[in-house]
């Protein structure tokens, strides 16, 4: 019997509260926290079919499906999840979670600080990928899941899958690390810092306490997103999509500084859209968490040594035109695993769409994920 391929349909967010203090890598302690999450499919009796989806910089728990009252609000990785899709909800129980420090319902800078009764703002501790894994493990406990069949993520999400395999080797059987890197390069950090500077120098930022001023640093956040967006696309793709096309096709050049090129219009609208809903402090925190990610650091830079405790089998995927986290960066992860004689498969997917490719529905890309996940024993 062939399953009809479809979306998961209508979904609803849930939340879980954890009152045990969480000691963070920075040394700070979060007294309590709440995580919002969504689940798709059914957890089997053995609780062996759960897959955790980790989100990247601007993602959240709404990974698949739509909400009853928001039929157009499609989850950010909907193309991957549902009956007959690579993360087949006929077989797997899929969990999406908004990470600590996020701005979609989980405890973060825009939540109230119990000590002051006011939003945390800049006082919210910087959380790291390691901290996210600890928090996600609490969610796994809450759901009664001893070990994930798989943890999957793209970009910063892929880094979480790696960290799971390192920190909690008994609790993850497969790590799917997509469009990621073992650590950021100076260039990566530089892009993140320009984005942060855009936010930090916005007069509406108010040292991170803009909530009390009934304002948001929209200009900074918009610039940060515009910059980020450029790095998610490939040069060729931008050339093909926009080229040098002008908004006003008949009018010619305006010899001024308004919106003229289509690419300007596109980036500004992406920036505006993002600045309208995303929290500036969360953006700062997420980029910092990316910058800090470096599991090899505690092993003197030896990635293989860092990955040694991992028991999970790995699928590493990169995209040819991704220059933010280029295929060579994925190869570093692969080579470290090979050095340890660990189970790993690696696919380098031909794609025109740069870093964003991991979010898109490429036939071969999805076929590789499907093939791999079909082999995952429950």
């Amino acid at each position, binding site marked *: 019997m062939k399953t009809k391929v479809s979306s998961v349909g209508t979904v609803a967010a849930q939340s879980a509260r954890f009152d045990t203090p969480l000691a963070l890598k920075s040394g700070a302690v979060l007294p309590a926290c709440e995580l919002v999450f969504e689940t798709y499919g059914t957890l089997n009796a053995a609780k062996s079919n759960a897959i955790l989806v980790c989100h990247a910089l601007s993602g959240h728990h709404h990974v698949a499906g739509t909400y009853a009252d928001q039929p157009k609000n499609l989850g950010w990785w909907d193309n991957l999840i549902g009956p007959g899709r690579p993360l087949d909800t006929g077989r797997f129980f899929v969990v999406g979670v908004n990470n600590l420090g996020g701005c979609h319902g989980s405890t973060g800078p825009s939540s109230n600080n119990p000590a002051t009764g006011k939003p945390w703002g800049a006082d919210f501790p910087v959380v790291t990928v390691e901290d996210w894994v600890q928090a996600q493990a609490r969610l796994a406990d809450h759901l009664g899941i001893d070990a994930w069949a798989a943890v999957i993520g793209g970009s910063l999400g892929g880094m979480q899958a790696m960290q799971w395999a390192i920190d909690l080797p008994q609790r993850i059987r497969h790590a799917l690390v997509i469009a990621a890197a073992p650590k950021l390069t100076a260039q990566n950090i530089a892009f993140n810092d320009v984005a942060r500077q855009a936010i930090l120098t916005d007069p509406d930022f108010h040292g991170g306490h803009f909530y009390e001023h009934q304002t948001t640093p929209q200009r900074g956040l918009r610039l940060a997103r515009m910059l980020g967006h450029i790095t998610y696309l490939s040069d060729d793709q931008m050339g093909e999509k926009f080229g040098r096309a002008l908004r006003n096709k008949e009018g010619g050049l305006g010899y001024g500084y308004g919106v003229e090129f289509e690419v300007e219009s596109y980036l500004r609208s992406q920036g505006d859209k993002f600045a309208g809903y995303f929290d500036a402090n969360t953006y700062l925190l997420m980029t910092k968490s990316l910058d800090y990610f470096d599991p090899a650091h505690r092993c003197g830079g030896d990635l293989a040594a860092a990955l040694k405790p991992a028991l999970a089998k790995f699928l590493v995927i990169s995209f040819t035109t991704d220059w933010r986290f280029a295929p060579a960066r994925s190869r570093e992860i692969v080579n470290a695993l090979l050095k340890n004689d660990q189970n790993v*498969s690696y696919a380098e997917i031909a794609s025109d769409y740069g870093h964003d490719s991991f979010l898109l529905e490429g036939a071969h890309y999805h076929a590789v994920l499907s093939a791999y996940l079909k082999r995952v024993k429950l």
Partner: protein
Amino acid sequence: MSHRLGRPDFEVIAGWVQPGERVLDLGCGDGALLKLLIETRGARGYGVDIDDANVLAAINNGINVIQGNLDTGLAGFVDGAFDHVVLSRTLQTVRHTQEILTAMLRVGREAVVSFPNFGYWKNRAAVLNGRMPVSDDLPYAWYDTPNVRFFTMLDFEALCAEMNIRVRERQVLDEQGQLVIEEHNFLGSLAVYRITKG
């Protein structure tokens, strides 16, 4: 560079792999050889292939497969990581013959190399008759062949001697996949060598 199931050289190679040994299969195709070695020999290891469809097929077969060309594919492995490094029906497609042999014997204790023998009498006859040979083991027309090196068993053995590579064992097959027991360079269509550093 892809394996077909049930290829006669697979049986020869399987006979050389001891239980639990580590195998690297370069140009692993759909992973059929590794799968055979895992299932019948309890071997472990990885396949390397450049082709999308082969990588997908190998993942479908449950094989650890690394997508890459032979150069990047081998660069990722540490010295002596494998008991056997297999290059099946691929050496004739590689431009840097000596480099690949050296790299294989760097990452592996021994290498298994199979290739179509250009010295096979039918190939010689084809050339004598004025045409490039086309057969089961050399299935391509001259204008679309992936093969860039044409050599005989004697040529290969001369290169091994020059590179101080020791031929530990060799098996030679005819077009039907039957073992050739005499006049190997004349009667053999496919040669399978087991080589180590001299």
